[in-house]
């Protein structure tokens, strides 16, 4: 009994001290087959040219030849943006590389805000002719630092932090969370919204910081992505 208590205590301590850094958000795209990744390359180059993001943008890496890979990556100093096709799921991904000031909520909001703004920019890019757009319902989040936040140990706290964030983001909308079955993967979750949101809606909600009382159903304990 004593052993069990100290285990729980240490677990709680570990969770309490969990710092979420290097946060990644991925916003899934609708009609991925229609997206021409080649057309995104010049767009990313123009972003470097005009330095349109908060981060210093450096280069473009083209991995279209790799199946279910990182797609087209806009390399930055503080963060990378990509049209990422990992798991054969195409989405706009923001990968925060530099550490951030602030608490976990602030860091989550920063990463999500950056991902949403980048996707909105692509949605409005004339040369892409409206082919790149948010599917409205699915997001992924990862913590890209295994030592800071292990796949299993960090899950509880990530879930708590997400509940707070998603409360603001999906005002009035239900959602569910699922997790990767493979413990070797990064700590992360898939967020399934029960109704459609536009990028602009989510940005607006995030900025307004509205807190809705609604909490989504408890996430399944540990399931493969479904």
């Amino acid at each position, binding site marked *: 009994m004593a052993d069990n208590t100290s285990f729980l205590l240490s677990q709680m301590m570990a969770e309490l001290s969990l*710092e979420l*850094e*290097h946060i990644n958000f991925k916003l899934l795209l609708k009609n991925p087959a229609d997206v021409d990744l080649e057309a995104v*390359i*010049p767009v990313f*180059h123009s972003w*470097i*040219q005009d330095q349109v993001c908060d981060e*210093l943008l*450096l*280069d*473009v*890496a*083209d*991995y*279209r*030849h*790799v*199946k*279910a*890979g*990182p797609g087209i*990556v806009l*390399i930055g*100093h503080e963060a*990378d943006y*990509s049209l*990422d096709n*990992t*798991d054969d799921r195409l989405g706009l991904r923001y990968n925060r*590389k*530099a*550490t951030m000031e602030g608490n976990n909520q602030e860091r989550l909001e920063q990463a999500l805000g950056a991902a949403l703004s980048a996707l909105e920019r692509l949605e409005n890019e004339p040369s892409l002719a409206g082919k790149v757009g948010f599917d409205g319902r699915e997001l992924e989040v990862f913590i*890209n*630092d*295994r*030592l*800071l936040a292990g796949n299993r140990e960090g899950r509880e706290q990530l879930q708590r932090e997400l509940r707070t964030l998603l409360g603001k983001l999906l005002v009035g909308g239900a959602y569910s969370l699922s997790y990767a079955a*493979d413990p*070797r*993967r*990064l700590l992360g979750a898939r967020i399934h919204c029960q109704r459609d949101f536009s990028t602009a809606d989510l940005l607006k909600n995030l900025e307004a910081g509205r807190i809705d009382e609604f909490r989504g159903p408890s996430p399944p304990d540990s399931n493969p992505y479904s």
Partner: protein
Amino acid sequence: MKASNALWRDHLADQMPESLAREIDIFETEIALRKQGKLDERLFAETRLRRGTYGQRYDNGQRHDGEKVQQLNFPAGALTKGPNTMWDAPGMQRIKIPAGGLNAAQLETIAELAEEYSDGIAHVTTRQDFQLHFVHIENTPSLMRRLAAAKITTREACGNSVRNVTACPYAGVCQDESFDVTPYARALSRFLLGHPDCQNFGRKFKPAFSGCSQHACGLTSLHDLGLIAAKRLNPETGKEEIGFEMYVGGGLGAVPYQAKLFSSFVVPQELLPLAQAIARIFARYGEKKNRNRARLKFLIQDLGIEKFRSLVHEERKLLPFDSRWTEYITQSLESTESPARVGGELPELVTIGAGEADTENFKKWLKFNTRPQRQPGYAAVTVALPLGDITANQLRALADIVRRFTRETIRTTVEQNFLIRWVSKPDLLELYRALDAVGLGDHGAGALVDIAACPGTDTCKLGISSSRGLAAELRKRVSEKGFQCDEAVQNLHIKISGCFNSCGQHHVADLGFYGVSRKIGGYAVPHFQVVLGGEWEHNAGAYGLPIVAVPAKNIPQVVSRLTDRYVAERNSGETFKEFVKRTGKTALKSMLEDLTRPPAGDRSFFSDWGDPRAYSLGDMGVGECAGEVVSPVDFGLAQAERELFEAQLAFEKGEIQEAGKRALGSMVTAAKALVKFENPDIGDDPDTIISEFRIRYHDTQKFFDPFAGGKFANYLFDAYSRSGQPYSSESSRYLLDEAQLFIDAAHSCSNRLETVVAA
């Protein structure tokens, strides 16, 4: 910089071998000292290179964005990690894999590092290493600690040191090998790592092992130290014994050198001490100041192989005995690979899974990607990686696969693929399914579609043209064309380098390409030199020669035309190399002549494959390609190219003296073209041309390559100073390459001059 960097040292303290842990601590301290300005940037650059931490393109803090040179304002400001190399600029981390051997846990570690410190991709190189790109210098100690915990080091992966010891990936399972070279490769790698006799080289030193002489897997001919497994009857006992044919002084680089035979038989117990003696002679007599002449090949060229051999043997006698010479080999011999499952035969195939298309794919995969082992019932399986790239998820899946089908082992190959050995043949279908499920079931390993390319302009600071962009495009087109191609074409090798340094090994391909730039209508256009006549087999038995430079966007047509003609005209059983020789370079060049110019008005030629930016807007200015403006310099350089081509033809006919003279003549013509730019009255007297070229272009450094410095000008001066002496076949051959590089450099110089004038 990662938030967890401060934690890894303690976290892994009891998992890292002490020597590696200490080495990484030292590096971390050096990083801190450099940040405080207490360590000179040059020293820091060498120390990080020796840990495999390279610079990457744009790390001088500038990038041409398609319109102008853009300053990249990194947060660390003016702090550098080497001359002209900004602290915050992302870099490349090379990871050494001796003999290409890995286990499942190591694959998982590399997957984690690719994800957490790079861009999610690990890249397999042509020397069986891994490379991760876009890595921040301050993350490298954590990255190295995680590797050390997995028993992998990055030590001496770059810099003037003994690089990865490579070996034929089929070693131990190959039907044609004399014996398994793996234990010897591992022992040599371990012995030379950090060895005090290997710390004072003027340049890198690359060893390679091969199990036989007829196949290409070890590529021993193009290494500083090449070892081919051999057997003989001992002259005293009459019993069969094993040993090595030892070759020295091979290397690609700008001018490729075939390795020379040092000894036809070295017994295993002499392998390590002889390598040590060679290292000592290289360190003592090798060039130190002029990097361009500092490889072992130049020392051997200067000394002659006889003198070099006798120096090494004398040094060998002086070496104090070292028990590791045999201990390391004995220890390595104790761990050999064995199968996890019982062998057998693959059942007859009718259809598999989803039906005929799947069955066809599986059959092609069986044909191209599998090879029976010498051990009955087992096969070695190649996992073909596009451009050597693999994702973190695929690496983890591969770890699962090797755990399931083997004793958790796998090797990287010099063709930038993986090889899974000891696969029980009845498991082949299941293995194929497992690979295919994660996008690793491509067939065509070692075939035309399996194109090797160096990083080129994607990430390499020296890249001139986009080798990976071209490789991706060719790969796509060859795949689309499908495998209806003639059988002979299916097995051709395409290899692409982004510049003359030949990291893509273009010299030993059937169809080789290396990046150059040319000016068309006053605008810079990315080009590739087409290199024909190389041989991949026989451990890279012959090096090709460039025949013509073609705009990058026309290279796919070059491939189509050459392969189509080969299919149509080849004699029965004729190899591509033999076909090239029989057809003659004049005929082949003339069939490509129309491709040397972009189609009128097609602006796509002014950007490279996979990169929409104008190749060099500084040269292009604004507006369209409005017809040809040919300057006297361009005329002169075109004449030089012509003369060089004639020199190559003379060489092919065996007219060695004529070839040498003409090659030198072509260099003088190119020099004259440049001199004429400043002194239109220059005559034809070679002495005057050389002297004026020296004063106007060499001494002012106007001809200097941004990275190679005065190297190419020295080719001219050296060749001219030897012009009265007879040429050997070898020296004439080298001069052909040097002349091509000199002319390429003259084109670059001309581009720079005209830019300055235009500005």
